[in-house]
């Protein structure tokens, strides 16, 4: 499942993943994420951080604190900074809650197609 407010990015990511044999869905209204995830039961969620109305971080917190959802792996996507900086500095600062575990993966914009496919493949396989 891809959650990104920007249609061009959504189209792009969906095309890549579909071309690599995954079936992809999305939630258009990001205030209804929980409902969408519960009904779709995805194997992986790719979540944009910077979105209007409700940021990816707040959605991430909701996913992680909901017992029905917290087993679904989540990869965050952002153009803010490289993976290392994000996981070590930005993520703890943004979340500001030590009980929330870090994401299962991180995708930096611009997206490198091979890396994205490899990460998604790995996370989906790990889930079995």
């Amino acid at each position: 499942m891809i959650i990104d407010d920007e249609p061009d990015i959504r189209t792009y990511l969906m095309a890549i993943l579909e071309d690599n044999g995954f079936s992809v869905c999305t939630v258009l209204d990001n205030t209804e994420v929980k409902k969408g995830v519960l009904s779709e039961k995805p194997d992986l969620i790719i979540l944009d951080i910077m979105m209007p109305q409700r940021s990816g971080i707040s959605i991430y917190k909701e996913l992680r604190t909901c017992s029905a959802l917290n087993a679904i792996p989540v990869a965050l996507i952002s153009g803010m900074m490289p993976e290392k900086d994000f996981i070590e500095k930005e993520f703890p600062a943004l979340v500001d809650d030590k009980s929330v575990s870090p994401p299962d993966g991180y995708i930096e914009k611009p997206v490198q197609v091979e890396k994205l496919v490899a990460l998604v493949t790995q996370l989906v396989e790990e889930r079995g």
Partner: protein
Amino acid sequence: MPEKIKLMDWIREHLFNVVPMSIAVIDRDFNLVYANKPFEEKFGKWKGKKCFSVYKSSTTMCLNCKGAEAFQDGKPRVNEEIGFDKSGKLTKYIKHTMPVVDSDGSIPFLVEMATDITEASIIKKEYQLLFDQVPCSILVIDRNFRIVRTNKKIRETFGDLTGKYCYSSLKGFNDKCLECTARDTFSDGEMHTGNHVWRTKDGEDIHSHVSTVPLFKEDGTFDMVMEMAVDITHTLELEDELKIAYSFMETMIATAIDGIIAIDIEGDIIIFNKAARDIFNIHDKRKMTKIELEVLLPEGFMAQVLLGPGHVYLPEAYVKTIDDDKKPVRLSGNKIEFGDGKSGMAFSIQDLRELKRLESEKLEAERMAAVGQTVAGLAHGVKNLITGLEGGMYMMNSGMKKGDVDRIQKGLEMLDRNILRVSTFVKEFLNFSKGRKIKVGECEPGKIARDVVELYASQAGKFSVELICETDDNIMPALMDGEGIHECLTNLVGNAIDACRMSDNQGGNHVWVKTHEKDDVIVYEVVDDGCGMDYEVKKKVFTNFFTTKGLGGTGIGLLTTKKIVQEHGGKIELQSEEGKGTTFRIRLPRNRLPKPESIDI
């Protein structure tokens, strides 16, 4: 010799009764046998009475009775006595006692003559009291400069100096002083004054202001001089302190960083310090007049100080220099009242050029910092754009491989859209980093808001957002950069409409643009009931190229808005609640609004 008999009669009958003293005759048993009229007037009835009962109201003879002694030795004597007059009042008198010696040597009578000295002794007592208690030192000196008498104050300070030389006992000198007021008085009989330093028995120096006067005798000559001295040590100390305080103040004024000017009651300029001279470009030592100064100060300023409540403060004003230049200053004027409706003035003038330079440097530094921050954030914006472009490329390439025309078409559209965004982004970024010098002019704050509302009316209508303008008509025109404020409101209204579009209940949203003024603060509010923001978004709103609009925005709008508001000395505040709406409030205090580059003094 009838004349002689007549004279004797007159002497017996009258003289005794007209001499200005009491005369009485007593016999050996102290019976009063004769007394004259003044006696009777003073002591009352006497006939058949004993002397002690009349003089002293006593029933027994006096101890040490001088009369008894005179009856014994037959010698006359004079002594002071205290008795009571006929009304019982204490009276003091000098009594001459003269025995009347008979031819056989016996003494049958005494003649007593009493002169009342009650009044004189009171005066003497008063004089002594005055002499001792007067709050100055008094001494009497003879022609050899020996001290004859001193008063209590001298005795307390110097001990008993009687018989000593004044110069040695008061100053510790071996010889007479070079300057001596007593000597001057001895030589010309006039009063002389001078200052002396006396040393007390405790070794302490007393500064004395001394006057010497001759003590004339009945015959017009004098052998003694009275020296009266007032201790002026404390006065001199105060004078010294005053001098120090004055010179301290003078130094402070002379070296003050701010210009200080004072005008006295007569309208003369009595203080015009160096800083003030520098501000007005007065580089010579010329004396300024009040009229010359009035021309240099803002028009009517002096009158305002004199006629108003006494204090006028202009945080930013312009003064003229004598070479007809002008300078930005902070000016404060105070009326100084001297009573009787008379007043002077004091001005304090701060040169604001340096402050202005620092302010503009600070503003520039802030702008540069914002640009720096922006450049860091730029990467983020560019990455989003690149992702969009790459997405377009991917769709094109994969579409071509698959022969999927739809996909190719989608890719082309993505490329088109993102290329347009790149150009918008670059333009906005350049515009921001370049900075725009604000152009200040008189604006109607309400009109700017109405213009922006009009501008957005059709766009709001397109998204079914109701755009409402609420403007208080009583706001006076203000000096602002109209275009800048217009840009701020454009950004905020644009954002508000976007927020409504992103809201759940699309179609029934509102955007209010409110303008009002309270306590000299012009307030703009852009309120929407759109999607609102959560904590993470609010935190970043004013920072760098933050956008929640994905590729729809560059994140520059609010940054620019904040910059313009700051350039107007104002503040921008944000209140937002996720799902409920957002309020942006711009507060522009009138006294902080920018000043135009040129202003008429």
